[in-house]
């Protein structure tokens, strides 16, 4: 993938210009799209220290899908962040993009690891140095600490396992390692497998490694959060598909698959109840991302082609939804300067575009027909029923039902209810540079709801690449499974038709019984009169009572983050004197530790 590297160098070495950034990303997108149209083999090998390492790059069809997601997200994101970025931001962003491309096209361990690390470090720098938190002191050191510690752990795990594999197979090629991993039965393959899996779970934020996600999402620059959620969280899925998909399809690995499915369900439950509890928009969306990613893992664990299709559909759809929601949230934060539900409210008639955007987003996010989110959910549920994993199904129905609450909270807290800190007279619609990409995303979500075939046809190609059966699509608008079919086109038409008829009926009544437009405070209020000062906005309280439900209370009360911090602090105390060796601050010492650890691992691997 020369193009990826080209973008990478272009971004790092040239003077930073917004236009350049967009052009380069558009170029990348275009190149990737061209790959679809005319599949040219651009496998690329680079001899490094001839005879010792061979870096090989080749973009598989899966890699292409992920690369496209990343490229399009990056393009939209660059458009949305037009003109608000400081120097160095673009360099880092493109560095990260480059790392991502290297990772996605990597054919061997070295390039895989290299891409992984470039991506991790540049994204760390991005959210740490360009944080959206207003007050630099308020910007929590904990977030960065957690992120980097967990990333280090995952990197070390991965490095160790990769070298272990190299040791066993004598080849740096990923395919050989995967083949070995699946060839060996029993404990020897389980342990490296689980370790590797933990590394990927961490990237996607699955339980129990989700703790870095909320803080990071909250503090990252607003548009970058969109990218984090839409593209970077998918890397874990890519790596999982790369290393484990054949593994989970293996007949003999039922227990492992079942375990992964439950990890997905439990993660979704925890994340959903945590999301309901959040009081700021980005925090809510962050936890929601964790939950949505977890469905994908559950579906992948099921392993049937329907489930796999559902997983990929859900993933693509999630990217679209989260880009849309984060863009609009970024726009609202930019216009109002408020991030929390108890500060916003009552903006619907001032920001109709954002309202419709969020509405489309939450309908799709909640998985309600007729928008696109439904198909992912439908395929996952149906595949679970066909597989007979009814308890897992219960496990993911719980969070996807509870998700309605945070979806409603998101739209109520911002647009409905009463205005609080934002004067509705002064509120303005979000700026066009958010509106344009949001509009595109909304259109694509609606379109996918009407014609899920648009995604499912390419997905079929991927499935056949994997050697699985393809999904039965009767037309663009309807989908058949062994046990039933669904037609979104029909749902949309019926709903639209009925809606129109009732609206006409209502307007007929309107002649005889006109609707009186009432003042905002003229509400049924038990006979009393609210004043302008009376707090009437339920933004904070919405969902507050959910934790009185036993299961939700048990989840919300516990905080893994705190436990990790406690462990970290204790470790810190023990290692206090060790730290004395290193000059400077914690970050420097962490980097040095990592370099040292990497060196040690390298040595061990070489010796073996």
């Amino acid at each position: 993938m020369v193009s990826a590297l080209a973008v990478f160098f272009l971004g790092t070495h040239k003077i930073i210009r917004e236009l350049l950034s967009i052009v380069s990303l558009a170029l990348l997108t275009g190149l990737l799209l061209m790959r679809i149209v005319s599949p040219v083999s651009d496998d690329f090998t680079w001899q490094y220290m001839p005879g010792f390492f061979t870096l090989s790059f080749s973009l598989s069809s899966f890699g292409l899908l992920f690369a496209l997601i990343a490229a399009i997200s990056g393009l939209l994101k660059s458009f949305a962040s037009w003109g608000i970025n400081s120097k160095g931001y673009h360099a880092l962003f493109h560095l990260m993009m480059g790392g991502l491309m290297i990772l996605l096209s990597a054919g061997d361990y070295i390039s895989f690891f290299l891409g992984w690390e470039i991506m991790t470090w540049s994204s760390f720098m991005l959210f740490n140095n360009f944080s959206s938190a207003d007050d630099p002191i308020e910007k929590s050191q904990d977030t960065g600490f957690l992120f980097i510690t967990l990333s280090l752990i995952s990197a070390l795990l991965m490095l160790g396992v990769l070298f272990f594999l190299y040791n066993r197979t004598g080849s740096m090629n990923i395919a050989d390692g995967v083949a070995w991993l699946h060839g060996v039965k029993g404990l020897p393959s389980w342990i490296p497998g689980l370790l590797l899996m933990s590394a990927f779970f961490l990237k996607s934020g699955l339980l129990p490694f989700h703790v870095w996600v909320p803080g990071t999402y909250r503090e990252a620059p607003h548009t970058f959060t969109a990218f984090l959620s839409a593209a970077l969280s998918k890397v874990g899925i890519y790596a999982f598909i790369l290393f484990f998909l054949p593994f989970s399809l293996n007949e003999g690995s039922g227990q492992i698959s079942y375990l992964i499915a439950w990890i997905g369900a439990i993660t979704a439950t925890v994340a959903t109840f945590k999301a309901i509890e959040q009081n700021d928009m980005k925090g809510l969306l962050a936890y929601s991302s964790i939950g949505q990613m977890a469905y994908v893992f559950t579906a992948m664990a099921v392993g049937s082609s329907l489930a796999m299709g559902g997983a990929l559909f859900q993933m693509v759809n999630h990217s679209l939804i989260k880009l849309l929601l984060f863009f609009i949230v970024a726009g609202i934060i930019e216009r109002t300067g408020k991030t929390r539900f108890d500060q916003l409210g009552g903006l619907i008639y001032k920001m109709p575009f954002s309202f419709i955007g969020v509405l489309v987003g939450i309908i799709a996010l909640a998985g309600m027909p007729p928008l696109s989110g439904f198909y992912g959910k439908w395929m996952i549920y149906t595949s679970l029923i066909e597989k007979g994993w009814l308890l897992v199904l219960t496990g993911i129905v719980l969070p996807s039902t509870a998700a309605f609450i945070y979806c409603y909270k998101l739209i109520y807290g911002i647009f409905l209810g009463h205005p609080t800190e934002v004067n509705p007279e002064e509120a303005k619609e979000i700026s066009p540079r958010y509106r344009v990409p949001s509009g595109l995303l909304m259109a694509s979500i609606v379109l996918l709801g009407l014609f899920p075939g648009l995604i499912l046809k390419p997905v079929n190609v991927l499935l056949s690449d994997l050697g699985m059966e393809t999904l039965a699509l009767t037309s663009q608008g309807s989908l058949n499974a062994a046990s039933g079919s669904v037609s979104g086109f029909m749902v949309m038409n019926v709903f639209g038709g009925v809606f129109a008829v009732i609206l006409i009926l209502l307007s007929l009544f309107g002649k005889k019984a006109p609707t009186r437009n009432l003042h905002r405070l003229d509400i049924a209020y038990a006979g009393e009169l609210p004043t302008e000062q009376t707090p009437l906005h339920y933004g904070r309280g919405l969902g507050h009572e959910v934790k009185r439900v036993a299961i939700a209370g048990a989840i919300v009360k516990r905080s893994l983050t705190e436990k990790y911090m406690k462990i970290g602090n204790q470790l810190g105390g023990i290692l206090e004197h060790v730290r004395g060796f290193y000059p400077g601050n914690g970050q420097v010492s962490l980097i040095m530790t990592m370099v040292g650890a990497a060196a040690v691992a390298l040595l061990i691997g070489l010796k073996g």
Partner: protein
Amino acid sequence: MLFTIFNSLLAVLLTYSMGMLYYGFYRIGNARIHRRVGPPLWQNVIDNIKLFAKREAPGHGIMFHLGPVIMTAGTITSMLFVPFLKDSAWLQGFSSYGNLILLIYLMVVGPLGNALAVGVSGVPFGVMGVTRGLTRLIGLEVPFFLSVALLMSGSGTISISEIMMAQDSFSNWNMMAHPAAFIVSLFSFVGMMGASPFDVVGAPVEVYSGPQAEFGGKYLGFLAAQRVMFSMVKLILWVDLFLGGATNVFILMAKSFALFFFYFIVGAAFPRFKTEQAVDFMLKLPLIIGIGAVLVRFWSL
């Protein structure tokens, strides 16, 4: 196409008149339990027409206006995805294009659309009611999904018509074939119909009639009409899934009335739970029965 539209209109009319009849009975029956005479049977129809005959209606902007429309449209759409009869071309709606999972999600569209209208009206009581409803939904959907999943995996299909078709004789009715699933689903059924002890959403003494607090006139008329129709959709769904479906309208009415009677008795006898108590209850007893049934199925395979 014309036939389908005609059929849809027929379905709307049938559910409306069935609903008004049943709820008329409901009010009289409740009155008899209360040791009084009660209103005439058609009182609900009179109430409904009166609401449409009001001279004005309160409004809080276009979103408030659309809420009841979405609610009614959601109800009618989900009605059209339920097959009313088996072995018949009549009253099938669009059910061949949908399935049970789609229906379960469709049934949430209307209430959520109305929730937007409630939110925009700015009545705090209304939003509290909506929150209660959404929280209660957790408790209702989980056991319900488990019970219908048992059916779906048992009969190997997720299509409502096919599940209905499979129940050809009394011993094959799903309530006999899958008794545990039926019992679990009955808990959810009572909750979904909004009967005590799960009627937290519109509790007048607590949240001032909840989501309906700000609706009046024609809007309330639409909400009242869709409420009875929605109840009938749920009843017919249960008849399709568990009671073997119906070959004609009279059998349908007989079976659905039996279920309705059950709902009426339970609703009359109990005070109301708090929201969290309702959810906890639903996640305890019904869920345990359901999980037990799944485990039994698992071991017996």
